[in-house]
């Protein structure tokens, strides 16, 4: 197991190097270049030149890259051009928000998706199957920002059940030691704050859950179907085992394998979806900040955030693979 983890970590190195070159090249390929990003409404060519000299943008490219890499290793990504604050601080501020949102969305997708997918598989070929599958496919085909707006219009504006924007009630004063607002309420002994944070989480999480939900329904259904056709299940049936036992013992266990993988891969999807959902709900997480950052050429932010996202993506998939190995001994052997 340790050797497996070590090998996976080694694989991270070429990915990170390649990505850092890509990111570095991307910033330099932007029209206008980085210097203008620093200057607001009243930029003059002289000011641009001056900034370029200050930033060392007039030095040779490889030198700039080596410096960039050296700082990146020390987690020094410079300061965000949007806020003038160190990128590392922006990460500490925004990653908890998006992680909280993504976990909530995944939780919704899994708890709703697995039972639905299982149900569809058991009723394979019936109208219920078709309805369940089609309905879950809607999740992938509705533009997520449109869904977010509709949810907000109905549940927040018309019905007034849930808040429209942000992560917490603006009028409330709560402490945020960890940055995970739901957790913070528990840590600081302020359950009202946790509840408040939870209500702010629901609508964006439901909107965000729509995409992984569809995938999880389809995957659960497909893998349960496959397993149902496999020999050991047929054998079990032939042996006259009770339906319920078969389900628990064989079908669901084996069906969980691909689903676990999907959940790992969904991280990227959730992050991408978060860009749109966070914008609609003014949810101050990673997604919104990065989307703005890309449009506004906030390249220190983009470089830092994408590197961190890529590392965590690879790490999450590594963990998924380990879990996969625990669930399925065959993988460990090969």
């Amino acid at each position: 197991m340790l050797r497996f983890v070590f090998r996976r970590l080694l694989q991270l190195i070429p990915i990170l190097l390649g990505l850092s070159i890509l990111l570095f090249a991307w910033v330099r390929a932007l029209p206008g270049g980085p210097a203008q990003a620093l200057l607001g409404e009243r930029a003059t060519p002289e000011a641009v030149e001056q900034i370029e000299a200050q930033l060392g943008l007039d030095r040779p490219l490889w030198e700039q890259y080596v410096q960039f890499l050296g700082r990146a290793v020390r987690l020094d990504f410079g300061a965000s051009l949007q806020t003038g604050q160190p990128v590392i601080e922006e990460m500490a501020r925004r990653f908890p928000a998006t992680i909280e949102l993504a976990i909530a969305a995944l939780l919704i997708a899994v708890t709703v998706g697995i039972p639905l997918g299982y149900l569809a598989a058991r009723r394979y070929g019936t109208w219920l199957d078709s309805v369940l599958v089609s309905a879950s496919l809607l999740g992938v085909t509705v533009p997520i920002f449109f869904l977010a707006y509709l949810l907000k219009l109905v549940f927040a504006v018309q019905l007034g059940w849930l808040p429209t924007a942000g992560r917490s009630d603006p009028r409330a004063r709560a402490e945020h030691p960890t940055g995970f607002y739901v957790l913070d309420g528990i840590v600081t002994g302020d359950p009202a704050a946790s509840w408040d944070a939870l209500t702010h989480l629901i609508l964006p999480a439901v909107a965000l859950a729509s995409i992984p939900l569809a995938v999880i329904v389809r995957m659960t259904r497909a893998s349960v179907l496959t397993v149902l056709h496999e020999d050991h299940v047929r054998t079990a049936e032939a042996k006259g085992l009770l339906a319920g036992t078969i389900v628990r013992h064989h079908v669901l266990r084996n069906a969980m394998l691909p689903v676990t993988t999907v959940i790992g891969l969904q991280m990227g999807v959730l992050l991408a979806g978060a860009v749109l959902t966070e914008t609609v709900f003014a949810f101050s997480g990673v997604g919104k900040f990065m989307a703005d950052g890309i449009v506004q050429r906030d390249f220190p932010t983009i470089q830092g955030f994408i590197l961190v996202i890529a590392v965590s993506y690879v790490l999450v998939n590594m963990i998924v693979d380990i879990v996969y190995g625990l669930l399925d001994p065959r993988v460990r052997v090969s």
Partner: protein
Amino acid sequence: MSTPEQVAATRPTGGDEAIGSPRPTRGLRSDALRRLRRNPMAVVGFTLILIFVGVAVFAPWIAPYSPKDNSWLSEVRPGAYPGPSAEHWLGIDPLGRDVFSRLVYGARQSLLIGVVSLAVGATVGVGIGLLAGAFGGWVDTVVMRLVDIMLSVPGLLFAIAIAAMLGQSLTSVMIAIAVVNIPIFARLLRGEMLGQRAADYVLAARSLGISRAGIVFRHVLPNSFTPVIVQGTLTLALAIVEAAGLAFLGLSGSDPSAPEWGRMLTDAQVALTSAPQLALYPGLAIVLAALGFTLLGESLREALDPKLRR
């Protein structure tokens, strides 16, 4: 953007179909077609696609007005946009144009984005996958590391980054979506080919002394193509939705007057309170078009899966 998981979807099933026969897919394909026709999801999907393509192709004959004609500007007041009437079936938009005509012409742009980005993404992706799958060895390693790098950045962010770099135009949107799809197709085809290469019939062919190229092009490739077709159908749907997402973030064609569903949906958010129908029409259009391709793609996948044959 939810495409990497389809790669995973094929992972546990790939490779063990059609063992032994040199032309194993013909029987499977006709069988698949038969099952497809019996699947209501496939029929609905196919009908939706037919309508969508029909509207796109015959837009000038269907739409009563030019999509850019703003002759009805004087009838518009802020927040008060004339609703459906005999002359304007879906009313007038905030800039004095016929909503129905814009919706009809919008189908063209969406179809164009979908087809072009699919064609580019799939062609390049398949080429890369072919390279890796056919040669194996260090070529495979290098190519797949590159694919890993591309896949480690969330698709939408990747697309935004490319679109931001290329500037505001329809071409850059199509390229952005295509590039995001390249690693997906590459990985898919390569995985399939690796599976096929290990299959018994390939081993048999090799022992008969058939050349490596011959095996790859005559046997491995055709048999690996089925999931690519399925993925392609789904990618068309995703491209339409992705284009809408990019439009929402301000990245779409350079001419805002040119009707495009994602942009119409985004622009309508401004008047969401006073005229929600303006968002509803393009929103529904996107959902239905994308649903058509998704339903067909999913049914296709299922029909082609030999394990689900009863």
